[in-house]
Structure formats: structure tokens, C-alpha cells
């Protein structure tokens, strides 16, 4: 299998070099690239590739939606050129694969949605959510929730927590928020694309963001964490969006302003390898569940033609690709200028 892919790849590279040498004028090199990974990033990549291929003759990029974990794993193995992931690579994986890079392309966030008949505004905090998902807070009129929502009459009803049962970047950033804001969660359940969910009577495991949405919509008194791309559908299904307690002690809703505030507070501290969590960021108005969407790529490509094709595409993606016409439909935001410069520096390392 490996020999086959290597053979294929070198054949493809040779062809590409030959065609590049033949064409004297500047034109995008004809190298097939494969993108695979995060289902959250997939719609954006699809829109990007359609537009990029139209304006760049010879561009040949295939997009597939598999999952963030698969995106990282296949990119490391060299089966795909661009792995898409909602989470950056772990220290252990970077140590084992030092040439792999995690390059932010855009900014996403996540809403905590609730299905409470008659209630449209709700304040929640990391410790409250941790309590709900640990099974310690089981009623909507629990003193902790009442204290966070003065003046709201909360129902005396059991809470139905909904979580993702498939591995997901959404679970990753949600549990990162709980770990960052609740010491108990940080010491026991930690964070990951799947966690060992404590057993709670009446809880629901749902598949995919669409499964989360239908489970929350079908079950009054439920609570669910859903990627921001689904915000419009969640609203039309009658789900409320919770205001979450940020590090500065403010309850904030996920809006363009609060997500940008979080991104900007992290922009100047983002390290050169850009593996940093934007969860629970500083800033009075910063929304606490915000993350970079990553391209996982190997800086050492087997052929210069492949590296240059990837370089062209990724550079285009963080510049032209960050216009509102691409970002608005999926509710993503473009990278702040400081982070864009860091991403460009990483893209320039491709060889």
C-alpha cells in the first residue's frame, strides 16, 4: 500500500515537474492536492476550492470530510497533503513528527444551546456546565443556575445533557472550556475529541452537529454544545443561546464582536508554531469558546512542485479566502493581522 502511494506520488511529481518545465508562463502548477479532515471545515474548503479552481487554471484539489483525528493522522502518513482539524496537534505528536505544522486558517466558535420553553436568555458558566455534564447539577432550578440568572424563573425539571458520541473538535473545545474554568473537571475528565462522559440518567449521545441539533430540539429541558456554523438552524429550531461566563467575569453571547475580542486578546501571545488555545481568553468582552481552525501539513513535501502548489493555495486561503463571502455562510471569522502573519510564515516553510 505504502509502496503504491509512494510510486503514485513520485509519478505524479515527475509529471508535474515536466509540465511545469514545459509551460514557460506563470501558471499554477498542475499538482493534485487532497484535503481531508474536520467536517466543520469541510464546507469552507469546498467553497474555497470551487472559487480557487475557477481563478487558477490547473489547480486540482480534492476535498473530503472525515474527521479532525483522521485529518491529522492521514496528513502525518502523507496520504493527504492538507489535513483539516479543529484542534492543533498534541505535544506528543509534534515530538514524534517534528516536520508537521499546525497552521490556523480561520476562527470558529461554539454556542451552548438550551431548550427551555418560555426562557430565551440564560447565563451559564464553566463550573455550572461541568456540574451538569458530571451529573452533580441535575435540576434546572439548581441554586447555582438560579444564582447566575437573577429574575429568571427556572423550571423544576431534570436537565437532559446532550453530548457528541463521535469524536469531534466541538467536544475538544467544549471540554477545554470546562477544564480551563473548573478545577474539578480539569483534574478528572480533562479534554479531548472524545472524553469518558460520566453516566447520567437521561443523557443523550448524538452523532454530528446535526444530530446534536435534532436531539436538543426534540427534547425540552435539554442542553447541548453546537458549532457556530449551525447557529441559524439552532435558532429556527427554537433553541436558545446561552451567555457564557468569561475569564473577566462577564456573561457574553457568541457574536462577531465577542469572538473577535477573544481572538485579538490571544493574537499577540500566539507562538510561532501557533498551537495555542483561545479558550477562556482574557478580555472583558471575549467569548470563552473560540478556536482556530487548522490546516495540518508537513513542511517537508516529497517534491517541490507539491510544496509550491500547497503554498499557493494556503496563501490564497488566508488572504482572498478570508473575505466575508466565504466566512459569513459558515459563521467563521478571518484571522487577525498578527496571526495571519504567523500563518504566512509557517506556510513559507513548505518545501
Amino acid at each position: 500500500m505504502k509502496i503504491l502511494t509512494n510510486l503514485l506520488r513520485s509519478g505524479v511529481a515527475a509529471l508535474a515537474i515536466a509540465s511545469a518545465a514545459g509551460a514557460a508562463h506563470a501558471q499554477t502548477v498542475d499538482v493534485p492536492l487532497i484535503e481531508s479532515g474536520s467536517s466543520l471545515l469541510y464546507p469552507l474548503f469546498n467553497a474555497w476550492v470551487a472559487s480557487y479552481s475557477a481563478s487558477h487554471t490547473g489547480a486540482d484539489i480534492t476535498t473530503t470530510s472525515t474527521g479532525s483525528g483522521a485529518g491529522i493522522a492521514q496528513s502525518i502518513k502523507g496520504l493527504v497533503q492538507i489535513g483539516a482539524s479543529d484542534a492543533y496537534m498534541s505535544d506528543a505528536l509534534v515530538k514524534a513528527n517534528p516536520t508537521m505544522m499546525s497552521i490556523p486558517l480561520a476562527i470558529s466558535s461554539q454556542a451552548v444551546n438550551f431548550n427551555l420553553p418560555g426562557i430565551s436568555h440564560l447565563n451559564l458558566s464553566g463550573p455550572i456546565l461541568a456540574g451538569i455534564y458530571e451529573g452533580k447539577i441535575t435540576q434546572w432550578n439548581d441554586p447555582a443556575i438560579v444564582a447566575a440568572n437573577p429574575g429568571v424563573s427556572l423550571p423544576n425539571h431534570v436537565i437532559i445533557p446532550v453530548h457528541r458520541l463521535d469524536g469531534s473538535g466541538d467536544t475538544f473545545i467544549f471540554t477545554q472550556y470546562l477544564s480551563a474554568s473548573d478545577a474539578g473537571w480539569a483534574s478528572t475528565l480533562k479534554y479531548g475529541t472524545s472524553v469518558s462522559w460520566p453516566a447520567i440518567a437521561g443523557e443523550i449521545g448524538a452523532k454530528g452537529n446535526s444530530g446534536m441539533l435534532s436531539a436538543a430540539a426534540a427534547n425540552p429541558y435539554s442542553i447541548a454544545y453546537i458549532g457556530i456554523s449551525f447557529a441559524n438552524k439552532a435558532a429556527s429550531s427554537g433553541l436558545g443561546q446561552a451567555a457564557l461566563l468569561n475569564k473577566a467575569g462577564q456573561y457574553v453571547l457568541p457574536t462577531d464582536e465577542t469572538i473577535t475580542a477573544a481572538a485579538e486578546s490571544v493574537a499577540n501571545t500566539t507562538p510561532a508554531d501557533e498551537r495555542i488555545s483561545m479558550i477562556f481568553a482574557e478580555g472583558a468582552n471575549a467569548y470563552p469558546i473560540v478556536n482556530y481552525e487548522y490546516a495540518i501539513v508537513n513542511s517537508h513535501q516529497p517534491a517541490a512542485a507539491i510544496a509550491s502548489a500547497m503554498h499557493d493555495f494556503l496563501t490564497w486561503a488566508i488572504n482572498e479566502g478570508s473575505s466575508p463571502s466565504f466566512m459569513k455562510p459558515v459563521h467563521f471569522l478571518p484571522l487577525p493581522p498578527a496571526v495571519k502573519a504567523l500563518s504566512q510564515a509557517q506556510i513559507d516553510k513548505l518545501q
Partner: protein
Amino acid sequence: MQIRPFRLSVLSLSLLIPAALVAVVLFLVVYSGQAMLFNGLHFIFNINWNLGDLYSDPVTVNGISVPPGANYGILVFIVGTLLSSFIAILIAVPLSVGSAIFLAEAVPHRIRPVLSMLVELVAVVPSVVFGLWGIAVLVPFIGHYLSPTGNGYGLLASAIVLALMVTPIIASTLLDALMQVPKENRESAFALGATHFEVVSKAMMPMVRTTLIGGIVLALGRALGETMAVLMVSGGGINILPDSPFAPISTIASFIVSQLDSAEADPTNMSVRTLSELALVLFLITLTVNATAKLLTSGALNVRKRQS
């Protein structure tokens, strides 16, 4: 000795299928070897599943590198698989026996082919379609009218979806056999003054009993391994054994699919190896079920020949 090219070529072709099976099993055994060492046998009786902290540096346990906190208990998934499949069979058998008898005995000749074709059509509906139906119709129904907590996802929803998927398998197998019961048996029972019910229950059903068991085994095989439809309606319960029909469950097949993506981010690869071991367990379960059924009825094999 005479060389027989025909026999040789057919022999080698026929060996390909068992060879592929052996290759898959060998791969699973070799690949999950390290997981077997780490998990031992007690992981079958452990209900706690934890991939561990995949984002910290791995730790070494008994000389094997694993993510910190990793603990793989699979009892919940074994129980979920067996319970959902057996309840599905309990629901499916009366349904399919009833519909097969109806099609064989009570339907006018001209409509029978149409109806029996419809039953067979249900057998080829992709499982994701059943899953969608489960989410859109069945789960809200159970939540509204049956479940005390208002939550429709879980054991019962999985079992009903599975039952609908396997009913046409049993029904069409049984129908074929009922149609082949000799006319003489049927008519002589009538001649002896038996009622229609007695003809079916005393003269016909005993003759197709082995066929029925064979059909159930085929159905059980499909139910045990079904992935997508169950994943969509099971509620994905982990770390807890189901205590009611409305409790969330996970089956082995659906659990492997749901965990694989996260497992691939494991730098030690132990999660993927354990999932391979879990796949091996599922393989053993289906093998045991099939072997038991073969022992119960040696004639069950004939069913498939007749059906094709």
C-alpha cells in the same frame, strides 16, 4: 495422476474467500497484540472506558506506552450489542412469521408476488435511511409516549430499528420455505378436518422450523454488526450498563465507528489497537452465535441454497 485444470482453478478460487477471512483475522490479532497484553482479560468485565489524556505525554504502564488515564473496559458494549440484537429478534420473529404466513396463505395469487417483492425490497433499504427514520419519527414517539424521562434515544429505539431491518430477512426466507411445503401435506391436513389455523401450525410450520432458525441466524448476524442506524438512535451510552429499555446504549460496531477518529490522535496508537481488539471480540460473538445455531439445526444450511 491426472491433472484437472478445471478442478484446480475452481479450488484456488474457492480458497480465496477463506484466505481473505484468515488474513483479516490474522491482521486483527497481530495488530491488537499489544492491546491484549495491556488490557488482559479483565477488560471484558470492566464498564469504564476512557481514552485517557491524548494531549499529555504518554506514560509507561508495565512496559507499554499508553496515554495517561487510559482505561479500556468493554462490558457495556458487549451487553449493548447482545441486548439490542436479542430484543430486535424478539420483536422481529412474530412480525415476520405473521407476515410470511399471511403472504403464503391468505393473499390472492395475483397480489402475492407484488407483496413479497415489497417485503424483499425492505431488506435492501440502506441502514442510514432506517437511522434517519429513527431520529425523525421513532425517537420523538418513544420520548413523547413511552419514556418516563422524555428521552427517546436508547435501547428500545435501537432494538426497534434493528427489528425493522431484519424482519424482511426472516420473512422472505420463511415465505420461500412455506411455498415449498408439498401441496399433499397441506391438503391432507384439510381433508382430515383441520381448521386453516391448524393446517398452518401443525402441518406446515413443523416442516419449516429449521428454515426459520436459519433465517433468525442470518438476521441476528446482521443485527449484531449493524453500525450506522444504531449509532444514530442508541444515545451512545458509555460507562453505564442499561437499566431500562430507555437507557442509552452503545453497540460494539457503532462504538468502534464513533471512537476511531479520536483514537487516531493517540500518539501511542494504543486506542486504535484496543478498538481492533474490540472488533475481534465482535467477530468472536458473531462466530459463536452462528456456530450455536448450526449445532441447533444442521438443516439450517439448506435454507440458503434454496433461497438462491
